[in-house]
């Protein structure tokens, strides 16, 4: 069970969080072409290495946060509010 650093509550156990998917995809404009929406809803990369993802501290402060996690080792490199990228090796 990972320890996830909530930017507001500090280091908490994974069981308090809900996973929210890839943080690097951007919501298309409502009038964007269908391909952009299909990619946003259905298509995801599967990178090996540091990857930004969203979690919600659902059993805590109810905030959404962005976590940079290495998908090979599960090492968590940093976390931040959803708008800002976390510190750590760029991705």
């Amino acid at each position, binding site marked *: *069970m*990972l*320890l996830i650093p909530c930017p507001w509550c500090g280091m908490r*156990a*994974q069981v308090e969080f*809900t996973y*929210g998917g890839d943080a690097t995809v951007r*919501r*298309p404009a*409502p*009038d*964007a072409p*269908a391909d952009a*929406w*299909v990619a*946003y*809803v*259905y298509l995801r990369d599967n990178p090996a290495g540091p990857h930004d993802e*969203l979690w*919600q501290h*659902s059993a805590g402060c*109810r*905030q*959404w946060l962005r976590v940079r996690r290495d998908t090979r*080792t*599960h*090492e968590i490199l940093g976390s931040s509010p*959803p*708008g800002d990228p976390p510190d750590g090796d760029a991705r």
Partner: protein
Amino acid sequence: MTQPFRLPQGGIVDRGARLAFEFDGVRLEGHPGDTLASALLANGVHVVARSFKYHRPRGVYGAGSDEPNALVQLACGARTEPNVRATTAELYDGLVAASQNRWPSLAFDVGAINGRLARLIPAGFYYKTFMWPGTPRWWLRYERVVRRAAGLGRASAESDPDSYEHQYAHCDVLVIGGGPAGLAAARAAAATGVRVIVCDEGPRWGGSLIGDDATIDGGGADRWIADVTRELAARPDVTLLTRTTAFGCYDDNLVGLVERVTDHLPAVPSHLPRQRLWKVRAGTIVLAAGAHERIVAYANNDLPGTMLAGAAATYVRRYGVRPGTRAVVCTSHDDAYASAIALHAAGVDIAAIVDARDDDELSGTLPQRARALGLPIAAGTTIAGAHGGKRVAAASVAPRDGGPARRIDCDLVCVSGGFSPTVHLFSQARGTLRYDEALAAFVPQASPKPILPAGAANGRFGLAAALAEGHAAGRDAAQRSGGAVATLDAPRADAETRGAPRALWSVPARHRGDKRFVDLMDDVTADDVALAAREGYTSVEHLKRYTTLGMGPDQGKTSNVVGLALLAAATGRAIPAVGTTTFRAPYTPVTLGAFPGAHCGAHVEPTRYSAMHDWHVEHGAGFVNAGLWKRPHSYPRAGESPDDAANREAKNVRANVGVVDVSTLGKIELQGKDAVQFLDRVYANRFDTLAVGRCRYGVMLREDGIVLDDGTTSRLAPTHFLMTTTTVNAARVMQHLERLLQVDWPSLDVRVTSVTEQWAAAAVSGPKARDVLAALVDIDVSNGAFPFLAVGECRVRTAVGHVPARLFRMSYSGELAYEIHVAADRGRAMWEAVIAAGAPFGLMPYGTEAMSTLRIEKGHVVVGAEADGRTTADDLGMGKLVSPSKGCIGKPLLARPALTAADRWQLVGLTALDGARMPRAAKIVADPAHPLPNPMLGHVTSWCWSPHVEAWIALALLANGRERHGEILWAVSPLVDAKVRVKVGPPCFIDPAGERLRG
């Protein structure tokens, strides 16, 4: 003579007390401090099991949790436990144990015939057999026989009567292992003031030091153990856990420990859990878990009376038991000499110590001491084979490099092929291993997590090294957590010189058919390893799975490294190139009950109750689960079945008035100047046109255009809304809204709060609802003042005074209806006031079953039934709700051709003809006699007996359904052979114009 092999003194057993126990029906005796294995050995019981495949007689092989042979069935009835290691089962008075895997008896086992068939059943034989003549039916016949032969012990078929606890703990330093390295580490860490947890899988502290005559800091080892544990016990920040195995190391230094609280007691006291699962988050782990002694694969190395050298010494020193009378010790390293010396001191005749190393390699302290005692040492020699039937009778020894063998009579063979550091948890923590040629062992290399191996677990053998390394590791671990700088000296033991070990994995077979076992538990021989290599299973993971080497309950602790070394030799590779298999938790078996702990039965998940729950119970309601909530199904009266009650309640709503508890629906408050814009984006229909004091039915779509949820949202003030959701989707919708506001649209000024539990809610429905409300609230509820979809505040007259409430005029049943929301702690008072006010009008409470009947008659769709994750708003007849004048979530992908195709399944109503009952979960076909596959035109989503129509009705999804009103089709359920004629019509069976709602 009882206990013929018990030594008159020595060991930690209490000879003053006697314990009676039973093995295979024979009553025997032991002492407190014994394990089942030591007591059996003391009584001269040398055959304790039959091996897994060949059913060969087996005796006790080791003295710890790595035991591959002595597995027994312990206790009876609901507490019976299979595959218990006799070497770790603590003896208690009245213990009952039985051998496993033999019929009719241990002494005469029919299964031994497998030994004669050995050539037909090598490793992997079942991948090549049980296929003739080739049809699946034959495999099922073979399977019945194979199933009876499979496995070792039997699990109880009764419920586990014991309780298990969970304990969470945090510490700065977790020391795994209570031997010399572990105790030195705990002592050093605790001295700096940090929080320390120490655990050992055995019942006492000391590990390999128990019963040892070594000197530490000038005193005896047992005194040192007592001093250190007393010191540790006196410190408030130190937790000492015996009988506790660290079974797994997980992310971020989370370690699972299982503490066997009462397994060693004759009966489980009712106030104690049987076992306690600890989830420990440790700052730094010190892994002082020791090392496992290894097997050597020579012919007949499994005869009873064969034992690991270290185990033989343990039985002498710790338990005061002589494992035999005349011993041959086979080794290739120094530590086995300590065993020979201990056995000699206990009166065992050492017939020979055969060491594969040459004479000039035997210069270490221990071999010298053995020589000085006059023990016969044969250098450059290995054991070529053992001889005997139900017990070893002789060993043949021969020069290491080949040559004539000579026979030595003996009844005890002590084997030691070297030591493998116990690196399991280090590897689970993503630590890497390296093969040390000099030690002939895999040792820890590096770990990304703070886990420090110390002592034998780190490949540093010998007492002096264990103490020094343990002390250093404990001190370093404490420093990492900010412990005070240590001034404590490391404990010291006498220095000793150690000769280098030589790798000894196996000895060549001299006769065809000789079995040289590598894995005793799964009956895997050296020939099986060679077979796997020949057949192309050259990866160590394939070797494991093809031969089952290391897959038994002992997980190959004494055999894995030998197996992979033999594979390396067979495939011409170096051992590091072969590598080890993946180490997986649990380290030793953990009983299943420990994992859920208290979360069993009704406590698997929390149960949620409405504020009016007790009233429902008092009035005879039966309950159903809606998610985690308990909701009343119906309120049966005397002599009524639940279905009769539901029908009575539904009829009464349409004729008079009823009240239903709707507290469980999700309620979300939204406030902020952008609330309207947010609602417009989230809902498919428009909310900017919703006036203050009004509510509106809304549908939410998923991003892919499919219906997500529905509910009613009310405008309480210009920028203040209350949204309701379905019961089961409340949490999901809340999370959805929070994500949109925090991640996707952070510039919107909206705040959302869940208030599901804060409000109790009741819906009063029926033609006389207004009469009831008029008697209940203090506002004007006439149709002009409070029309359909009005929302307002009022006060409810209850027995505890006027209670503030929110009042909503909306209807789920299709009748004139009002929803009353009050603060949850006033819920029961409100409910009772409704019941009282409704009495003159024939008001009855109704449950979810009647509610379901009413909404099916009205054609209201339900998430989970009609909105099943595949249907669009248009499929459900709500296409017009998707506003063309604005965007919303889901709109872009809703335009996809497949979601707007003409032949999509659309919502219709079905009425069963001929007075028939609608089949359960029926499919719709044109002709039930059509040969399979019968084209499916649709399926039924909800069905019920309709008191209003007086027939069975259903809502269904039907291909092109809206064009098919009036058609007669069939609703079939092939699983129960039901078929019913149904008439297709609009999905509404009462008041399609909605006059009852708006009056």
